[in-house]
């Protein structure tokens, strides 16, 4: 993901964010649509400094929490941590090959779901462990596949 100019990349990330809300909220697809917010953050955080990536995660979490009331605050914290860790992951996870990207997206999405579950459980709305494991694994695989497709599309366009 090193191709393209800064502005091209910015537009691409913004498009992913807009598409996330259009699909999930505007068209009412819900979890049928992939979590493009996490994908956008994971892609952006590879290019940003840890603090900036955390701030972007906070902002995206604020947007997500505004439309999904139960995630207000939790999504901001989880995405801020995810952005920070995504930015720091450059130190030990190098390379842009598809396998690395798939692993990166999968681990990121899984970590996000895990953090959300823990935060919601602390607030008394976590649900059962089975409700975490299976949907989170499926959502992470979905996000990894779509993330790989999005990064491939970006390379083609940029």
């Amino acid at each position, binding site marked *: 993901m090193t191709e393209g100019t800064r502005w091209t990349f910015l537009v691409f990330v913004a498009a992913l964010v807009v598409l996330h809300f259009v699909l999930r909220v505007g068209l009412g697809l819900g979890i049928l649509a992939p979590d493009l917010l996490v994908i956008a953050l994971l892609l952006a955080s590879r290019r940003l400094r840890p603090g900036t990536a955390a701030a972007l995660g906070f902002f995206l979490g604020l947007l997500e929490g505004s439309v*999904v009331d139960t995630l207000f605050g939790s999504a901001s914290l989880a995405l801020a941590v995810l952005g920070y860790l995504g930015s720091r992951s450059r130190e030990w996870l190098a390379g842009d090959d598809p396998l690395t990207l798939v692993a990166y997206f999968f681990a990121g999405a899984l970590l996000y779901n895990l953090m959300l579950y823990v935060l919601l459980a602390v607030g008394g709305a976590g649900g059962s462990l089975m409700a975490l494991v299976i949907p989170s694994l499926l959502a992470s695989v979905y996000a990894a596949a779509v993330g790989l497709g999005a990064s491939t599309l970006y390379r083609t366009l940029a």
Partner: protein
Amino acid sequence: MVLSALLLAIPPAYRDTVGHAVRSTVLYPVTAMQHGANERAARYADASRLRGERDSLASYLVGQSSLAQENRELRALLGFRPRLTYSFVPAETDRLSGPGSNGMLQLSVGTRDGVRMDAPLVTAEGLVGKVSRVGETSSLATDWTREGFAVAVMTVDGETYGIATPADDPHQERVLALTPVAFHTVPDTGSIVVTSGDGGLFPRGIPVGKVIGQGKQAGGWQRTYYIRPSVNPAEMAHVLVLGEPQPGRSDQDLATAWGVRLMQTQVADTSARAVAPDAATPMAPLRPRPAQPAAPRPRPRPQPRRVDPTPELPGRPVFPGQPRVPPGIEPPPARP
């Protein structure tokens, strides 16, 4: 991250403010698109079903108009006050998705439309849930499937009382568990369960579901019974939010709105008790009592009320955006 932690810690009222500010600015196009999608979905709802409901309602209104007038006149003769009825607000729902959102519904109405906190949600089939957070133009509600939901219920014969909470039956089907039920009380399978009105949160008489069998032992001298709720989660696209009781023209119990006949009638009519302590001596407080106390007369045994099984939705519908005219004030005549 500190800001995120602060967001988690702020009170719900401020959360609503922040969320509303974001929704009405940055996310305004998306929320507008969502409203449009909801309206389109409602517009293209099953037309034949709607037509059937309309025809049933029309036939019911024709058949009941004289009875309602007759009841009003009889109540006036007896000195009874008009019974309070419940207003309701029709709303469209959108099920929330994501972690922690199981059993959460977003409603298209808010305080602007008269929705209040903890207001019950119903459909033509029965109880759906209750409002859990109220915004100005939208609200959040929890349905009966969400953990933590609880409703005080009873069987229609009044023999079995308890609290119904969400549970999974042995087939992993989401149902309600009625507990604790006294060991000597055995509700029949198929018995209709309605809200008992205990606790004051849900009015008495809203159908909740039917008893489908006995569950695992609650321990001690108690039993647990499973209830299959009347309203399936897939049938919650359109709901009615019950409002405050208000003087109306209906004199029927809320249970009769769903065609449910409560065999255990209420002990006394509270509206009548305020005027006449004894229903056989109407207008008693308005007249001076005679010096000689009257001999006690045998009271007739309370008879169950005759209830037409045709469903009726009581109250006055209030549509979002429509000006609300207080009761007793005639709306201005429409200009040609």
